[in-house]
């Protein structure tokens, strides 16, 4: 019985086997007086796991409430959009696209000149999970590489895939000398 206990203590105190060698050697006298199984001690108890799940639940609730609150707050604001010139839009060839930023440098947008010469601009964020969409020249539509969504290049409407609403359209104005200006941005709505 005692030899088994000594073997167990030796195993625990073996520096080569344990990464806590210093702790073991420091507590060796105590270990000899009050031997206990360190491996079992390292296990998570049921109560600890319950508490962890409780904390996770609280975090998920706060996350949901925070995200919903932020979305509701953002929608209630009516931001002012400044006019901004889209550089290089005058020379954009039909059937091609151009990236720019509007209204701020953090908001990427995409301008496209369709084959019939019309200009259309949209926010570049996919309405599904905010991946950046790109203009697919071969099919003349916007595509989202993340989850295979596609949008119409003229209207921004969803053609297929998981996006729940159209892309956010950006209002354009063609001024003197063919300069293209972005003058406003809306939220793409599936209603109407």
């Amino acid at each position, binding site marked *: 019985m005692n030899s088994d206990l000594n073997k167990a203590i030796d195993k625990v105190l073996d520096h080569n086997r344990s990464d806590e060698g210093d702790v073991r050697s420091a507590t060796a006298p105590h270990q000899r007086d009050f031997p206990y199984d360190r491996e079992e001690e390292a296990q998570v108890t049921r109560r600890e796991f319950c508490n962890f*799940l*409780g904390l996770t639940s609280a975090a*998920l609730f706060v996350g949901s409430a925070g995200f919903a609150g932020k979305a509701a707050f953002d929608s209630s604001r009516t931001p002012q959009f400044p006019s901004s010139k889209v550089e290089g839009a005058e020379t954009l060839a039909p059937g091609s696209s151009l990236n720019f930023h509007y209204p701020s440098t953090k908001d990427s947008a995409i301008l496209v000149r369709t084959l019939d010469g019309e200009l259309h601009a949209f926010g570049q964020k996919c309405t599904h999970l905010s991946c950046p969409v790109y203009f697919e020249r071969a099919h003349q539509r916007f595509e989202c590489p993340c989850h295979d969504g596609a949008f119409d290049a003229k209207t921004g409407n969803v053609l297929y895939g998981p996006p729940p609403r159209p892309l956010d359209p950006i209002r354009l104005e063609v001024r003197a000398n063919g300069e293209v200006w972005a003058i406003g941005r809306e939220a793409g709505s599936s209603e109407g």
Partner: protein
Amino acid sequence: MQSNQIKPRPIRNLAGKGRTAVAQARLILLVMVNVAQLWILAATVEAALAHRFSALLPLVVASGICFVVTLTLIFWWRPPSRRFTSSGYLKQ
């Protein structure tokens, strides 16, 4: 003269087994509620990005209810103090 014989280990209360089952069930319920809350969070994110604002409040309320259920499961049912410790010794 004192005897050096080791006292036989006491037989643990049979109710302990049932208690373990209930504790296990509570743990499983907690995990299920957490999974449901994770789904609710995903639905909230999707509803917010889709601008379906009318769905946000019910989703947050549902998440809140799940949180209350979790708290209830953790605090309402507590195993009573056991007579024997895990090593089998009688508590003082």
